[in-house]
C-alpha cells in the first residue's frame, strides 16, 4: 500500500505493509532514526513526533493513517549548526546521560510549550482559567509521558524551564 508522507517538509512515498507503524516507517523505511523505539507500547515517549503540530507516540499509530499530515521529527527540529532553544538548553543544563530518550523529550517539550501558550491546563493546574504558569511541577506533570531511564529528570526540567523563560 502506498502512502504519501510529509516529513520535515519533504514528501516521501512509502510502500509498506499496512501494519507498519509510523515509528517503523520512519526508522526502517525512510532512514529517519531520530525517533527511538523504547517500549513500542506508548508508555515511554521515546518515539514522540509532531503530527500537525501535536505531539504523539509514533509507535501507536499506523503510517497509512497519515497521508496528508504534516509530520515533524527530531531531524526537523534545529540542526547541528543551529540548535533549537530547547536543544541548546538540554546541552547547557546537561539534560541527558545516554541520550536515548532525548529526541522524544525534545519533540515532546517543543509541543508542550505550545500547549501552555495555547492555555491548555494540566492535572496540577490550580485553575482551569486558561492561563497556566509553567512551574517545575507543571513541567513534570506535562512531561510524564516521557521516561528517562538515566533519571535525568531534574536537569530535563531545568532545561525546559530555561528554554521556556528564554522564549517568554
Amino acid at each position: 500500500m502506498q502512502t504519501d508522507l510529509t516529513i520535515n517538509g519533504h514528501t516521501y512515498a512509502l510502500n509498506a505493509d499496512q501494519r507498519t507503524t509510523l515509528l517503523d516507517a520512519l526508522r526502517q523505511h525512510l532512514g529517519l532514526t531520530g525517533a527511538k523505539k523504547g517500549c513500542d507500547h506508548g508508555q515511554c515517549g521515546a518515539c514522540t513526533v509532531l503530527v500537525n503540530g501535536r505531539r504523539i507516540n509514533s509507535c501507536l499509530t499506523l503510517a497509512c493513517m497519515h497521508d496528508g499530515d504534516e509530520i515533524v521529527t527530531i531531524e526537523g527540529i534545529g540542526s547541528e549548526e543551529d540548535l533549537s532553544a530547547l536543544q541548546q538548553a538540554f546541552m547547557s543544563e546537561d539534560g541527558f546521560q545516554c541520550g536515548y530518550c532525548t529526541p522524544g523529550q525534545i519533540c515532546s517539550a517543543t509541543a508542550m510549550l505550545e500547549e501552555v501558550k495555547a492555555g491548555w491546563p494540566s492535572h496540577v493546574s490550580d485553575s482551569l482559567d486558561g492561563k497556566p504558569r509553567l512551574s517545575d511541577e507543571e513541567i513534570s506533570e506535562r512531561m510524564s509521558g516521557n521516561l528517562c531511564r538515566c533519571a535525568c529528570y531534574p536537569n530535563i526540567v531545568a532545561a525546559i524551564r530555561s528554554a521556556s523563560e528564554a522564549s517568554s
Partner: protein
Amino acid sequence: MRPFDYVRPSGLPEATRQARAEGSAFIAGGTNLLDLMKLEVMAPTRLVDINRLDLAECASLPIGGLRIGALVTNSDLAADERVRRDYPLLSRALLAGASGQLRNKATTGGNLLQRTRCYYFYDTSAPCNKREPGSGCSAIGGATRLHAILGASDHCIATHPSDMAVAMQALDAGVEIETVEGITRSVPLSDFYRLPGDTPHIETVLEPGDLITGVVLPAPVKATQIYRKVRDRASYAFALVSAAAVVAVENGTIGSAALAFGGVAPRPWRNHHAELMLAGERPSEKLFEAFADEVLGEARGQGGNDFKIPLLRRTIIATLKQATEESQ
C-alpha cells in the same frame, strides 16, 4: 500483529456497513487498539479508519448542553473553553488520564470503548473469558490489585479503566449511536455498558456496525464539580479508585448530588438509590459515611483488591466533604 484489510470510508453509511462484518473494527486514535493488536489480544481482520469522518466538532446545543463529536480528542475536550467553564469535572478527569501524547490521539468515542487493563486479558497465554469466551478467569484467585469490588461476576472481575467516562456518568451524559440501518439512537451512558455476568466479552449495548458518533452532555447545573483520583503514582497511571461528584448545596442542605466511581467496577459505577439519601439533607460526616456504606453494601474484595473497599469509602467521604464545603 496479524494482517488486516485497511479501509477508509467516505461517510457514515459506508463506515457502518464496512464495520458490520465479523472481525471488523473501527479505528480512531488507535492508542488502545494498536497496542492490543501488537500483543495479538485483538486481531481484527479489517480496520475501518474513521478519522476522516466529520465527527471532530464540539457544538453547543440550542437547548443548553454540549454535543461532543466522537472524534474530538481528549486534549481538545479538556481544553475546550465551554468544558472548562461548565463541566470542569470533565476537564479534570481527562487531564488525570494518560499522557500528553496519548490525549492528543485518544478520542471521545475510543475512550468510552477502551478495554480493561486486567493483566490476564493482556496475557494471551492465560485463560480469560473476556478475550476467549468460556476459557475461564485467571484473575479470580490470581493478582487482583486492579480489579473490581462492585458489579463483577464469577466469570470476570475486570474494571473499566476510563477517567473520562466516570465524569460523564456523573454528568448524566448520553451516547449517540449510528446504526447500520442509518438510524441515530441515543443511549444514556448509565445504560451503555453491560455488566459481565456470564458474557464478559460483550461490554456494551453496541450491535455489529454501530458507530458512536458523539456524546451529549445536558445543560450544566449550578453545582460544585470535583474529580478525585487515587493512583499508585502521581501521574500517568490508572485509577485505583476515583470519584466524580456534582453536588449542589442550597441554604445549608444538599439540593442534588450525582456521584460516579472509577477503578472499582466493570463500568463507571453509579448508585442512584444511594444518592436519594443525600438530597434534602444537611451535609455531615455521618451522612457521608451512611452514603458510602450504601454504595459499598454489595462490595466484595478478591484478596489483592480488598484495600479498595476502605479506600473508596474514604475517597467518597473526602469528596463529599470537599464538594459540600465548596458549594456552600
